[in-house]
């Protein structure tokens, strides 16, 4: 269900900022990695002790000769393991596996102009999008908010490639990325893409809508990790399996730990691949995804394994 997996080796690690590391991944068999469309991510499978951690990471770029990809990983404060593993356990020569690229944050190719807005680690897909736009000679601008010069893992490279199409906003200098400066006077057919902290994404989308932009011209990607909650148990009606979901585990992770090959693509509540029918739930479904419609949530007939949970004792799924 999880699709094609590619064994890779880490060939280079860069401490790009105090909290972000960039990793270069090459196929262990020396072959070429598939080209990808800007905005794509892969799921990195990490062999932690006794379990496999699976986290999505956006692809920054692919070497000209196709031999490697780069990803950028932020060390999150309350990591349950994934980003900590990448920062503490992964060294040059480490072997990992990745899935084929998946794109849930594509460029709107027929767009007349493209405004790329990034905050912090949100630069990873935006970096790839800017490069694709540069190559096709499109009209684009990059607005990139960072804590300070030392935090801009990508600043030097972006400046080199994009010159004054790049606008930098340094928090340490009280430079504010104000949408009110960016949104007005854009030509019809302009598309805006935002990636960064959840609060920033919400604010940008909200201002866009308030300024009268059609929802179809506003694009975003949330780097959502499965949020924690209270433990509960899950029973698979067809497979006849019951297992516990710990508070620091997602439903999907618990099923995988129990040996179930459950469907997934993004593991971030965006793609819809992991939707499963609910047979019974003796509690409230906590929907954390961005996929189900409000009506579908209210109906309580479906749940997204990767990010949603039960606040209750037992969930019975049609699996």
């Amino acid at each position, binding site marked *: 269900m999880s*699709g094609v997996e590619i064994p890779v080796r880490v060939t280079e690690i860069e401490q790009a900022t105090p909290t972000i590391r960039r990793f270069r991944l090459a196929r262990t068999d020396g072959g070429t990695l598939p080209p990808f469309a800007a905005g794509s991510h892969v799921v990195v499978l990490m062999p932690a002790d006794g379990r496999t951690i699976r986290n999505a990471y956006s692809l920054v770029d692919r070497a000209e000769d196709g031999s490697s990809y780069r990803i950028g990983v932020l060390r999150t404060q309350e990591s349950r393991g994934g980003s900590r593993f990448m920062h503490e356990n992964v060294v040059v020569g480490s072997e990992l596996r990745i899935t084929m690229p998946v794109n849930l944050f594509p460029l709107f*190719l027929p767009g007349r102009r493209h405004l790329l807005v990034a905050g912090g680690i949100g630069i990873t897909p935006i970096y790839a999008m800017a490069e694709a736009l540069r190559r096709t000679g499109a009209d684009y601008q990059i607005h990139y908010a960072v804590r300070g010069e030392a935090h801009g893992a990508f600043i030097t490279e972006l400046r080199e490639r994009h010159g004054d199409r790049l606008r930098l906003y340094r928090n340490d200098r009280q430079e504010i990325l104000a949408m009110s400066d960016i949104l007005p006077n854009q030509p019809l057919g302009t598309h805006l893409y935002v990636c960064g902290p959840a609060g920033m994404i919400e604010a940008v989308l909200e201002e866009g809508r308030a300024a009268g932009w059609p929802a179809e011209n506003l694009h975003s990607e949330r780097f959502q990790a499965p949020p924690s909650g209270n433990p509960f148990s899950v029973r698979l009606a067809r497979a006849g399996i019951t297992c516990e979901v710990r508070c620091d585990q997602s439903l999907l992770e618990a099923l995988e730990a129990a040996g179930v090959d459950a469907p997934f*693509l993004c593991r971030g509540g965006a*793609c*819809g691949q992991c939707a499963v029918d609910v047979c019974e739930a003796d509690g409230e479904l906590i929907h954390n995804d961005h996929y189900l419609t409000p009506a579908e949530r209210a109906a309580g007939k479906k749940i997204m394994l990767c990010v949603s949970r039960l606040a209750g004792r037992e969930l019975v799924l049609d699996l």
Partner: protein
Amino acid sequence: MTLHFKKESFRDDFTFSNSREAIRRFPFPFEKDEYMYSVNIEQHMPGPAKSPFEFPIDIDEHYVAEMHDRALVLKEDPGRCQSLPHMITAEWDLVELLMESMAKHYPEHFQLTRDGDAWHWINRPLGIDQRFTFGDTATLPHPPMEYITRQCQGDFALLDQRLGNLWMDSGMITGQADWSLDFDIGMNFMEWHAPVPLAKDMGVFERALKFLLNLQQGRPVRRLNWTMTINPRLDTSPENYDKWGRDRTTVTPENVGDKVHLRVELQAMWRLPRSNAIVFSIRAYMISMNELVTVPKWARRFHRVLRDVRGELAEYKGLSRYRDTTVAWLARYDDGAPTSPGFAPD
């Protein structure tokens, strides 16, 4: 695999026919004695040797003649090949997919050498030897999609994915069953499927679209579709209706075997890597009723399918005028014996 390419025509004197081997490998689309629309999508996995599913791109004995027919269509009507400017990356993705697949599986006929962006393509059956720079349109005699699809059997549509839908923004459509790229270009999945009866109410298109939006690189899928054609004509386009529409009135009990053809489309879908577009290939196979009845199971089964197919469906597929005559003709080959499950001949 060394193929022998036939010299034949799909118009005027209609010399097209299938060899014995081509009949055996025909992708007969009915696994049961009845037919109704469904979300019939499966993994496009390599199938049995010599079958049309053996390789992702199937080249057969009709290759050279079909490419000649495509050239004739394009000469009269260049609008059969169209591409919106934002599809250029998808066009190059298609060049890679088709050249790689053809060269890998038919090395006697096609050869691809890559050195970075410097590519060298040899197509022996069509006598082409081309060096070009991958990604640089100026180095090819035609735009990339047109260039490669003039050399590959089947029609092709390139679908851009945006706003949770697929948009037909590019295509090479010269052998279609009565639909028009010129009309459909720029439409989305629901819009271009609007003329299809029944399927929409069954939720077929909603589910198929949801599935395709998540189509993954490296995991292509396929489905079979079918219709019928009078005379082995590839180009049954609305643009040319005056040429083939009246053929439907020429079917008599005496000429059914020769004139009436079952036309099966092997439709495969791939996610393209650089563009995130989807390519939809429509590879058509035709078989005359005389050829079909050489396989007793197919004769029995097709008789039953055609006899019982819903009226709306027969009307949409344009079968109504010659359906009864054909069913009566096929009845001679149906002794009422049960048929085995599955597509394959017994």
